[in-house]
């Protein structure tokens, strides 16, 4: 099954432009724009299965980033 890319959502009002999410992304697909981070997850070299485990969300000091995901059993896909 092809990976479905779900880009993280950013609450611009909470984002302080600190850049921690850019530093945290091991695949280097996040860049800082004028109003907040821009996620290019479709360019992820590990096809969305990298070992970052949503580090951008974890490191965000204001909780501005959310990466929503489903939880499924291997037998269900």
């Amino acid at each position, binding site marked *: *099954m*092809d990976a479905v890319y*779900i880009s993280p959502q950013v609450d611009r009002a909470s984002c302080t432009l600190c850049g921690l999410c850019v530093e945290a992304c091991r695949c280097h697909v996040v860049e800082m724009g004028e109003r907040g981070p821009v996620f290019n997850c479709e360019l992820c070299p590990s096809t*969305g299965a990298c070992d970052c485990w949503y580090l951008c969300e974890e490191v965000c000091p204001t909780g501005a980033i*959310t990466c*929503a995901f*489903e939880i499924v059993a291997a037998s269900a896909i």
Partner: protein
Amino acid sequence: MIVEADRKTSKDQDGRESETREKQVTINHQTLTQFPILAALDDDARQKVASYFHERTFPPGQTIALEGEHCGKVYFVIRGVVRVYRLSREGREQVLARLGPGEAFNFVPALDGGPGRASVDALTKVTLYAMPCERFRRIAREHQEVALAVAEHLAAQVRRLSDMVESLALHTIRARLARFLLAQAEGVQQPSHRWTQAEIAAHIGTVREMVGRTLRAFGAAGLIRRQGGQIVVVDREGLEQETVDA
């Protein structure tokens, strides 16, 4: 038939305006059969009970009830999903339940007359049937089957919340997250949902940073893997072992 519609506009914490609607509608009493608490009523009684409800709709994110405040109504969920939670002084959330169609809430304040025990938000657009607490108490007094169904509902809540207390007090975050992932993957906790780390943290009684770290540890151990917008449980037995604290 809509007899009356009352729109209420309010602002959330971010200043966004939202609107709740309250309608006095003629409710088809057959729709009440989906609620276990009212299912045992005979047709005539259900028809009478239906006339005491009014319909309320809430947009996503709207607060329906606040912990500690007087709430004069019991609510039955017709459409959408609500989140029941408590908030610490520091702003940490503990989610107690997610309720969908066929479920109901606010029975504790309805029965003891005290303040609400938890806050309730709309997770999606929500339609509820609402009834004043005093009216509901009268129905429970008049219809023994409703009183018994409420007692059964509260007994189930005691069981579920006792399990939650045990989990929060006696198990590690690793074990709690493993249980949560298994329950979701097995479809035990319905309805299905797209989760964020912050939401999971609020369900298992921790902070999102710990959820992220533990997910990564489970991934490194080969118990789960990321696949686009999914977390896939690939080693169910291994994850089950994690539910038992070392």
